[in-house]
């Protein structure tokens, strides 16, 4: 009974802390705007299959390139498909792929960075040189190679994006760990004979978590842009799945006379990226992290 009470208190404290952070983020206009935009996109992504007015695949020569109207709020594209339907569903794909990609990036990048920062020595040297080598390869070329060999399914895109966007997190996590390991509580833990895993889990992660989370949030917005770039080049999700990058690519040649087919996905993509950036900045400020002095990546 005593133990349950302690756990409940801990959870209550965590919830209170999360609420406090959210409150602090929302107290600044930029944070409030960022949070609102991200929340709007997340909610839209969740409900879009239920509110989409048309079948996103339905092609018809009779409805090609119709201007915005009461029937088609955002007009239609060159194959006669409803742009509103495809825009609200397009965010769903982008958010899903990049959210899980960011999680993978956070997980492997954060853990590897912390491990290298803690053990140091030759292992750290070797791992960081390998990471440096990967950082020197333009990610888009490497991604094109991967999708050329393995295809463009989400099962390929999510881990591949997660891998390439996790490289920078390794360096941030390592630098944050270096700041922590010289502190007395780590020295004490070592003196008490705690294993490296125990020190990472109980001492380091709680102290570097915030910095890594902020970095992860920033990586999410970059990944979103990267994923859309891949789709724009035709190497993201496969047609007919609606996707902003693919929609922009297909409609870019029609901009001068059918602007509606390209404006909606551009607004969707750019607003989400801005929203995530504003949220990440507000998140960092709420945690007291100065992003201008963070470790170079």
């Amino acid at each position, binding site marked *: 009974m005593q133990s349950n009470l302690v756990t409940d208190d801990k959870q209550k404290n965590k919830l209170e802390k999360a609420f406090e952070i959210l409150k602090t983020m929302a107290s600044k206009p930029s944070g409030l705007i960022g949070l609102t935009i991200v929340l709007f996109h997340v909610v839209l992504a969740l409900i879009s299959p239920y509110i989409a007015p048309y079948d996103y695949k339905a*092609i018809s020569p009779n409805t090609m*390139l119709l201007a915005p109207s009461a029937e088609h709020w955002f007009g239609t594209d060159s194959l006669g498909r409803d742009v509103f339907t495809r825009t609200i569903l397009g965010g769903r794909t982008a958010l899903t792929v990049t959210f899980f990609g960011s999680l993978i990036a956070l997980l492997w990048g954060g853990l590897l960075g912390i491990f290298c920062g803690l053990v140091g020595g030759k292992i750290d040297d070797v791992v960081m040189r390998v990471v440096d080598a990967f950082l020197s390869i333009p990610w888009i070329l490497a991604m*094109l190679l991967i999708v050329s060999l393995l*295809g463009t399914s989400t099962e390929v895109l999510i881990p591949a994006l997660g891998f390439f966007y996790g490289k920078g997190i390794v360096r941030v996590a390592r630098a944050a760990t270096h700041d922590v390991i010289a502190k007395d509580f780590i020295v004490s833990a070592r003196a008490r004979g705690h294993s490296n895993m125990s020190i990472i889990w109980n001492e380091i992660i709680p102290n570097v978590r915030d910095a890594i989370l902020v970095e992860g949030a920033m990586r999410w917005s970059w990944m979103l842009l990267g994923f859309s770039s891949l789709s724009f080049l035709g*190497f993201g999700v496969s*047609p007919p799945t609606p996707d902003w990058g693919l929609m922009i690519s297909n409609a870019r*040649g*029609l901009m001068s006379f059918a602007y509606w087919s390209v404006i909606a996905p551009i607004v969707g993509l750019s607003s989400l990226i801005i929203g995530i950036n504003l949220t990440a900045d507000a998140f960092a400020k709420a945690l007291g992290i100065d992003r201008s002095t963070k470790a170079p990546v």
Partner: protein
Amino acid sequence: MKYILKVFSATFMSLILSFSIANASSGVFKVSHDLGFGKDTNLDAITKGRLFQVVIKTQNRLVRPDMNGVPSPSLSTDWSANSDATEWTFNLRKGIYFHDGSAFDAPDVKYSLMRAKDPDIGSPVRKSLNVVEDIEVVDQHTVKMKLSTSFADFPLLLTDYRLRMIPEGSGDTIGQTGVGTGPFMVDKFDPEGTTILKANPDYWEGAPGVAEVHVIAIPDAQARIQALLTGQIDMNRYVPFNQKKIFDSNSKFTTTVIPTGNWRGVVMRTDTAPFDNPKVRKAFRLAVDRQELVDLVMGGAATVSCDTPVMPSDQYRLQMDCPQNISKAKNLLREAGFPNGIELTVYPATLEPTWPTIAEVVQQQVAKAGIKVNIEMVPSKGYWNEVWMKKPVSMTRWNQRPADTILHEAYHSGAKWNESYFKNADFDKNLADARSELDFNKRKKAYQNAQMTLWEQSGTMIPYHVSRLVVTSSKVKNLDAVDHFSIQWHKVKVD
């Protein structure tokens, strides 16, 4: 009097000078190519990687199609056949010189055509030329071609855009030099950058209207359109019809719509399961709504084709209707052992701007018959080497050719570019019969039988023959409104 003479002389000299300037080649005509053959791109017209945007300007044929596609004189002034059309005599134009200074004569003709038949070179045009058994040099300006069978349409075969005349013995270097008798000479060959052609002042039809032609490698279709809009190139012959509005309202450009025999298609390899079953192939082809493809992809500017590669204006084309038939397609799949349908992947690239759209529309159309199509985009560069004729299903595009040539080249069991690996003895026999038949109606019947075999058995879905939207800068003048291979390039001017 002296004063009058001086004025007269000055006026006369000015007139001569201005006349000379007016007739001199001037200006630069800039065009593009898609680098579809990557590192294999070369200037040897008979090879797979030929950069035709260059060779059609530097080299001539013996016979060329006129504005209506009828064989007309080029380096051969006239020709005649014996009574059973097994021997054809061609008289050659006199006083013609190659860019390297050597004279064009009968041995060059023999060399150029026999080289295209050389199995070691493995030219895609070899299959069509198999009918030529020997070429006899009668004199320096006369050749006699001996055929293995009667062939009433033989001059039509020689209008093939690849059958260019090159100097005798130049085979080892022609891929880099592009030497010919044409209106332009290769100054710099840079397939991945800008290839520069200079006007041939001694061209036999008169000096070209422009001083230089630049052929620029731009693999992406949209990048080529942007290049046209920004003035980097002066002509784009591959503008999608849904982008016509961009140019229609712009006085800087001229748009021309040209009906052609060029076609696009989806190719199923007939040697690969499940497409080794003719019922599966026909099911896929029946599930396509061709008119909808014409409307959606071409904005209506194309002629529906029922999987025949023979152009709509060709006298041998088989006219038929082929509406979408989903229930029949489903039945065929069931009979073939696929009651739950099939799944396949196509690999479009943007080197042909309509391919991704064709794939997307076909994907929706055939889904109704239980055929699931996955679309995987692939890079434009090297498409013809790495995807076409390699993957089980690929996208294709062909330029127009006479009926006999295209049927041989794309479907004959021994053809190098038999992209669907189609093998059908009846089809081959019909082609052989057609060639040797002197009676027009019987010949026509044989060609049409061959096309009917394609409709029943073929692995290539050909939805339409395109009308070409050609957009040029308004600075470009005198460009013939015909297909690429019939244009007389020396007449083109750029203000």
